[in-house]
């Protein structure tokens, strides 16, 4: 028998709905104050420190972390609500989102006490931005081929090499990166990599922005030249990074950001077709809404199972696989349907601008944070094919 896939029908508890109202009210205020526009996902400056600090003040960063580190000890389902509301509103979450989703949990698990006490409260306050240093010029999906070296020296390590496609490195205060501390062994090619906490904006690190096809500059090349990292910035086991960070991956893969990235074009299409759509538009919208509903049910289900202490690793990979393929197709399907919208509808210009941005964004969605091919490999392993 193939291992059963589980998608328990999880509902968000009532206190999540209270929270949702608070988040919506907050976002409405910020929109009214001109902090950001929900209609402009293509803003040039996606880093808005003031917004980040306000979200921190509300207690919506590090929501699930222990109070002694500035966290709020709330549930993963509550965090889910905040994440999805921000995403749907096109709120500028870039500065804190990676730290909240990934870096903070890694530090909680592997950082020494004094570092946790120093850094985690500042993440929660919305003051710190994190980047993730995984890919290199010659290792992308094949994470364990990383070559950037960490050479042991007095009291720490010297780093030499280059990370690439590093999102937010140009604004980040810290990076959590994988460096090579030993060569791989014959028995285990994943051996020899170690996770480090890297303080950015220091001598020995050069960040070179890389332009993207959307016109934005959100990822970077990061060059390390004899950059010193102290011993207490090692996260986890030396040479043993491959054993770490499996459960975090389930959160990273299954969140609302994995199917809502281009959602705004659907909202704008509904606005453009008006209250009495023809059959073609109605059918097209109906199918898209059925999809987004199903994706959300799957994603909430994984969040609920994680919350209950289960490990839905394959289910999470499935959410990311079909969620990202869907959000990639969405702008094209909306374009199909928009072709028949009246020329003079009020939001035509907004919709066209959004479509142009979403269509240019689409190719990256099935690449970032684990390609479709890698995900399908994980699913295949879960099915017992490898």
């Amino acid at each position: 028998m193939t291992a059963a896939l589980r998608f328990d029908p999880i509902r968000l508890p009532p206190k999540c709905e209270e929270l949702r109202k608070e988040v919506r009210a907050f976002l409405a205020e910020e929109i009214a104050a001109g902090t950001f526009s929900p209609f402009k996902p293509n803003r040039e400056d996606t880093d808005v420190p003031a917004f980040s600090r306000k979200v921190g003040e509300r207690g919506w960063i590090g929501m699930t972390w222990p109070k002694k580190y500035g966290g709020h000890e709330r549930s993963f389902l509550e965090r889910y609500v905040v994440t999805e509301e921000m995403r749907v509103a096109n709120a500028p979450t870039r500065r804190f989102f990676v730290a909240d989703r990934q870096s903070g949990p890694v530090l909680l698990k592997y950082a020494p006490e004094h570092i946790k006490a120093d850094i985690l409260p500042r993440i929660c306050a919305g003051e710190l931005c994190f980047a993730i240093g995984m890919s290199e010029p010659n290792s992308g999906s094949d994470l364990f081929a990383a070559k950037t070296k960490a050479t042991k020296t007095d009291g720490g390590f010297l780093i030499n090499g280059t990370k690439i496609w590093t999102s937010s490195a140009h604004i980040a205060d810290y990076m959590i990166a994988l460096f090579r501390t030993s060569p791989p062994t014959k028995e285990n090619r994943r051996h020899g990599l170690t996770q480090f906490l890297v303080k950015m904006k220091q001598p020995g690190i050069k960040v070179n922005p890389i332009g993207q096809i959307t016109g934005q500059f959100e990822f970077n090349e990061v060059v390390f030249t004899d950059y010193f990292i102290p011993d207490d910035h090692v996260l986890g086991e030396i040479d043993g990074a491959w054993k770490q960070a499996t459960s975090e991956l389930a959160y990273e893969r299954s969140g609302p950001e994995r199917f809502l990235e281009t959602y705004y074009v659907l909202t704008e299409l509904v606005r453009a077709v008006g209250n009495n759509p023809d059959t073609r538009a109605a059918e097209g919208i109906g199918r898209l809404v059925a999809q987004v509903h199903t994706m959300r049910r799957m994603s909430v289900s994984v969040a609920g199972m994680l919350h209950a202490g289960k490990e839905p690793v394959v289910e999470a990979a499935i959410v990311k696989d079909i969620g990202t393929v869907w959000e990639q197709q969405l702008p094209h399907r909306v374009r199909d349907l928009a072709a028949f919208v009246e020329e003079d509808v009020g939001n035509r210009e907004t919709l066209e601008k959004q479509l142009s941005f979403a269509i240019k964004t689409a190719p990256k969605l099935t690449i970032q944070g684990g390609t479709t091919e890698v995900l399908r490999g994980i699913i295949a392993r879960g099915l017992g094919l490898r």
Partner: protein
Amino acid sequence: MAESENIVVETAEKIFADLADVQAVTSDKTGGWKAPLWQALTEAGLPLSWVSEDCGGAGASLADGFGVLGAAGRFAIAVPLAETMLAGWLLAQAKITSPDGEMTVAPASPKDRITLNADGTLSGRARGVPFAKAAKHVAVLASGANGWSIALVDASKLRIEAGLNLANDNSDVVTFDKVSPVTIKPAPKGFDQTALMLMGGVVRSLQIAGALESMLDISVRYSNERVAFEKKISKFQAVQHNLARLAGESAAALAAATSAADTINDDSSFDDDAVFLETVAAKIRCSEAAEKGGAIAHQVHGAIGFTIEHILHRYSLRALSWRDDFGSESYWAVELGKRVAARGADDLWPLVASR
């Protein structure tokens, strides 16, 4: 394959495994398995799962019955179990006692209408009625001058033109020519044909999701056995990726169908927008999964899966046929799209995020 966690579902699975083994059923050209299967299901009270004990049924919960339907999908059950359950549920809405024996429901399409005449007889035509030929009674939803009524009709009083769906199960045209029902009572307030179609759609969604679970299971197993180019085909990345996509389709169907079933309880109103979204989205997404997932299951199996001797078609063709019952995915997509548009753009996300 999902393990059941519940005694009613376990009972059903045991009966299916003993008396409706898919390989045995595929090999049996006589249909001799049907009578013993129906007998055992009846003795276990399963066809009337959703009928309370004082109306002649087993009084199982809605959730138990939904679990049985998922299991029925996993075994591609081809006796009118789902139809009798749905008929019993419909009759119970009007507190009409369910008779023994096979039943089905009419209408089975949102476009057909049965009319209650002033003289108390029923007229109209219902197409694509599943298993009408095998049914002893039909549970009918009819519209009259005073709104909706629910009726129990003796099948022998109806003109039934046999038809077959893709899987060669009966899908018949049933004509009501001034037929007098055995019993007829007003439907409860708010209950209409949309409610019946949505409930029928959830039933079919669960069956499709179950069939996809089995298609994934047998496809994985086959790929781990079949050797080509001197290795198991499961070792080819192209095959692995196809199976991963099939797992995705199966997962989407399962999530949508079980979530929709979970929204239905004894007090739920089908007119509620959130319930409408859940039930309609399940039918749309499961139907799409039946197409995409079934195609992959066939691709993995190659020519052997295209033979009448192989078990795959029992799942794949039934899943494709179930798309048509109680409103197709394109029908419901239009209805959902209209409802979303009527609410307006800014009310779309609040609807999606409503539970």
